[in-house]
């Protein structure tokens, strides 16, 4: 069996004195799509921040392509081909839509994603390319945030709660675009509150509960009851 692309072993994450993750173990194979589900405060965003380098952890706790990246800075992690679509979009208000996308691609990594490709995926952005990014609707901003991450041609893309605060019809259209995104050979981790959406696009899922992995399994095999139990911590 091939070496996993991303391997997390015994990840303990802290915010000062507060511990958010306890000994989390996970692995992701190349080309896989993982869903990470769990209630609010379960540690999903902490996990994303840890992998992307926004939070620092023990070096060997996170391994990517056989390299220990746990203690690297976020810019160093990004240079290795891991991109994060952050919770809450977090676009740059001083930059236009196009500039947000351009800065996403500043590392000029090789791959199929460039401005043209992103505009093809989200045509509305092409119309509004010169507009300040924060004057867009929530759904459009989410498209910019995804496009910005794609522009770096990552090998691993992390989506943190992309459906948060969006209308169902918008969520639907974004999730419909997702297979097209990851179909290009990218691996992905999708943090989601909406469990059915998460299951619909992923190969495997992990459920976090109060900082620990409570459930792991193939998305098409895991039962509703098992998910409920793990989600709410009912044994």
């Amino acid at each position: 069996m091939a070496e996993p692309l991303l391997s997390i072993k015994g990840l303990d994450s802290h915010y000062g004195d507060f511990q958010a993750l306890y000994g989390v173990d996970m692995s992701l194979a190349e080309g896989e799509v993982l869903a990470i589900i769990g209630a609010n405060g379960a540690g999903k965003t902490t996990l994303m921040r840890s992998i992307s380098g926004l939070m620092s952890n023990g070096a060997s706790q996170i391994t990517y392509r056989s390299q220990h990246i746990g203690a690297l800075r976020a810019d160093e992690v990004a240079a290795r081909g891991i991109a994060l679509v952050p919770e809450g979009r977090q676009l740059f208000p001083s930059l236009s839509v196009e500039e947000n996308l351009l800065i996403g691609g500043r590392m000029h990594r090789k791959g199929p994603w460039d401005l043209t490709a992103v505009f093809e995926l989200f045509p509305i952005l092409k119309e509004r390319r010169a507009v300040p990014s924060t004057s867009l609707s929530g759904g459009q901003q989410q498209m910019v945030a995804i496009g910005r991450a794609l522009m770096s041609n990552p090998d691993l893309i992390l989506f943190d709660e992309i459906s948060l605060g969006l209308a169902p019809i918008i969520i639907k259209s974004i999730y419909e675009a997702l297979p097209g995104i990851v179909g290009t050979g990218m691996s992905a981790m999708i943090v989601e509150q909406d469990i059915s959406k998460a299951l619909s696009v992923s190969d495997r899922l992990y459920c976090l509960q109060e900082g620990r992995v409570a459930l792991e399994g193939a998305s098409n095999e895991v039962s509703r009851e098992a998910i409920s139990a793990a989600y709410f911590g009912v044994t």
Partner: protein
Amino acid sequence: MDWVNALVQGTLLGGLYALFAAGLSLIFGIMRLVNIAHGDLIVLASYLGLVVVTATGMHPLLALAVAVPAMAVLGYVLQHGILNQTLGDDLLPPLLVTFGLSVIIQNALLEGFTADPQKMNAGAIETASVSVGSLQLGVLPILTFATAVGVIAALQWMFYNTALGRAFRAVSDNQEIAQLMGLNRRHIFGLAMGLALGVTAIAGIFLGIRTSFDPSAGASRLIFGFEAVIIGGLGNLWGTLAGGVILGVSQTLGAKIDPGYQILAGHIAFLVVLAVRPQGLFPRVSG
């Protein structure tokens, strides 16, 4: 006609003040850092120019070719080595560290050059003038003003048309997320400070040609630069130019009433703006 003359001279003086202020404005815009040593760094550049001119006999304006890169490198090293460690939510460390730097620079200059006033000799250009209507305008003030406009235009162009400018704006918006784009913020801040000190070098050379300077001259330069930034409005370089002009005009008009009132008149103009429109005339960023 005398008053028109004062107005024009004040406007040109404003160019010098805008040069003082541009570096300050840049750093605040990108890093939210206010550098109390800024004035002393301008004076340091003047002394650097003096050393180069004395050692090589070249014209002071040519000394820019040495002073600008030298100060730029100093800026990068200073930011990377010391100032990056002061950034964060607490306002005391950057303030007190830059204050300490100010004291160190002033006293180092005092030790090295004594308190004697110095001046760089730029030859004929200092007294040359052109006639515009019935006014006599000095070539040096015109050149200074033109340089200020040129520098600000170049900075604006850089901010809005280059990848570096995008990087600066992104880091200024959201340092954390900017890292996700592969931006090393310590390096970016170093570049920003290097750029600011390069501009400061230009200010220092023009200052050193125009008037005499001594190690304690930094305080006034900081204050004039600061007043120009506040009058013009935070986060807007063209506003800073406008602020410089208003300050310059206030000073020359005050001097017309009584030469001893020059600086005080500038302070009063600043206080009036502070009282009536504290956010400045063309603000873009909140303090």
